[in-house]
């Protein structure tokens, strides 16, 4: 089959690779119908997230049609049109039982990497480094889905592919981020990053009862999207002296009740602190540029919630004192997609959520490297590049 492979830093190519096979009894094989870029892919494409190997197939946000199932697959059937959360879960361990799906104990074939880095390993992901399992990714014609009964969600009739594709990752990640905020009536939620995940977090905050949502970004077209498709208020951080001051004034001097970081380790910013981060990261003295999350911590009202969705490695200059003294609640996780998929499918079916506006650009799988280039550089207002295989 054809697949998009990582061959080194900033070296993506479409290559011919072997087809996946059923290897375990709960596996299914999907013919991928749509897959999409994710900002978190850029971290290893740019070389900031280690444990990639040359030849890895990338891509973790996708949907497809089931073409083959293993002997112990009970619910999923050949021919089903399904959307698949990016984290692979077993459905049987303590973490799965407690709805902490991305912490599943049984789906990372290479737990030793994360045991060293994090103390305990998380679940595996498709096409997202060997620390997250080393599974082949989904920017390919076919993909193996382990534990198919827990990981494939049937798409109801009447929904278009592009309406449900982002339920694989961007939508449940954003929804979880808003859920973490414990939104009360009248709440104001500020969201850093108006990319796919951030825009979904903004929309979810409204769905969960927020009164106001403020989008912080610097790209006019993304801020325009936040206003047009989500109804958020836009704050262009490159046009103001201090985001923290502006947010304080916008909220009667209190600060947002909760702040969501949907940016991660390659944040952009302004001023000397950003230059310092950038230089240290370029020299590999630390892996993260953390301007967005620092700002979110300072901007958040006392006793508020900081919800971190961005992907981080190790970061210094983390203002823990502000979290402690202001009594913030820090909530974070990789997406527990399996928890949110059923209700998200319902929201889409009822017309309350339509993530298809994220699909700003479409490419064939053969042109996927071009798609990533455009996505990375945010050319032509690219929010997400979608691949058809």
């Amino acid at each position, binding site marked *: *089959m054809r697949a998009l492979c990582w061959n080194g830093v900033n070296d993506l190519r479409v290559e011919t690779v072997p087809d996946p096979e059923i*290897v375990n009894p709960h596996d299914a094989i999907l013919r991928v119908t749509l897959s999409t870029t994710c900002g978190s892919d850029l971290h290893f494409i740019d070389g900031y997230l280690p444990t990639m190997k040359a030849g890895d197939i990338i891509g973790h946000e996708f949907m497809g049609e089931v073409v083959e199932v293993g002997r112990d697959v009970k619910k999923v059937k050949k021919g089903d049109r399904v959307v698949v959360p990016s984290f692979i879960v077993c459905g*049987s361990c303590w973490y799965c039982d407690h709805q902490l799906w991305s912490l599943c104990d049984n789906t990372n074939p290479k737990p*030793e990497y994360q045991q060293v880095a994090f103390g305990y390993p998380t679940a595996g992901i498709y096409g997202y480094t060997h620390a997250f399992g080393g599974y082949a990714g989904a920017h390919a014609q076919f993909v193996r889905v382990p534990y198919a009964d827990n990981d494939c969600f049937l798409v109801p009739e009447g929904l278009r592919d592009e309406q449900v594709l982002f339920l694989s990752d961007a939508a449940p990640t954003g929804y979880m981020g808003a859920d973490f905020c414990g939104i009360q009536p009248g709440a104001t939620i500020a969201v850093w990053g108006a990319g796919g995940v951030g825009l979904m977090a903004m929309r979810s905050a409204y769905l969960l009862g927020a009164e106001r949502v403020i989008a912080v970004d610097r790209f006019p077209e993304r801020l325009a999207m936040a206003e047009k498709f989500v109804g958020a208020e836009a704050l262009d951080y490159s046009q103001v002296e201090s985001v923290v001051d502006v947010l304080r004034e916008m909220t009667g001097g209190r600060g947002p009740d909760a702040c969501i970081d949907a940016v991660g380790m390659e944040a952009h910013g302004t001023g000397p602190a950003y230059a310092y981060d950038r230089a240290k990261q370029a020299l590999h003295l630390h892996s993260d540029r953390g301007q967005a999350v620092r700002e979110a911590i300072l901007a958040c009202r006392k006793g508020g919630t900081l919800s971190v969705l961005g992907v981080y490695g190790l970061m210094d200059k983390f203002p823990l004192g502000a979290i402690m003294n202001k009594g913030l609640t820090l909530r974070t996780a990789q997406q527990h997609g399996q928890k949110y998929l059923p209700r998200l499918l319902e929201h889409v079916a009822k017309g309350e959520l339509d993530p298809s506006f994220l699909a700003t650009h479409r490419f064939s799988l053969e042109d996927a490297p071009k798609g990533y280039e455009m996505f990375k550089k945010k050319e032509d207002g690219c929010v997400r590049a979608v691949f058809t295989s």
Partner: protein
Amino acid sequence: MASSRTVALREVPPRDASSQEDLLPGRWSRAASTVVAGTLMSLGLRRRSLGGTVMALASGALLYQGLHSRKRAPSTGGRTALRRVSTGAEARREPLVEVERTITVGRPAEELYRLWSEPSTLSRLMAHFADVTSTRGGDGRHWQIHGPMGRELSWDSRIVEDRPPELHRWESTEDSPVKVQGQVRFKPAPADFGTEVTLHLAFSPPGGALGEALAKRMRGIPAMQVMKSLRRFKSLAETGEIPTLDHNPSARVSAD
């Protein structure tokens, strides 16, 4: 903002001879991966070095002793201990490498005890470093480890203590070239966590030294392999399968 710049300047480390060496261009990528998560790649956990690692596990016990001695006497004791053990190893036959790790499995002890006893289970758990087959009608086990350059190490083991559903203990037979003791214990965990499963392995070297070079490969590896076996057991018990990258497509020759 001026203060940030000051902090940045202050953080530049003083340059002595060794830190200058660390700043050579070739070191950058290594530093980066160490910072985040990639440290294990250099520990020889890639498949191509696994055989050598396990060979070290089985026969390099004296080196492990050396590493431990070094911990107790950080200045010069390590090398001394290494020499002492490598010349006097024949005198000691007690186990020198001991590893114990515990994992919690969400199943009752009775079920886990039964699963562990099944003839096919051990071979599935240890598949990443050993072939384990049944001997003498299923009671004993034959272990085989493939080392580098075609070297092989094998031994037989038999159950020496059996207390269902709490414990299995086994030992290598008298004629084995390597002395191995192992036991697995099952203890109920609190609340709804299931059962705490502890695997204990002890290895005695087959006489002679494989050399100081092995020491570098030994650090942390036996514990890692024991933990990996336990994780495989947990997955098998909880889900009926073990996560795998067999036939995992990529643009490389190897699947993982």
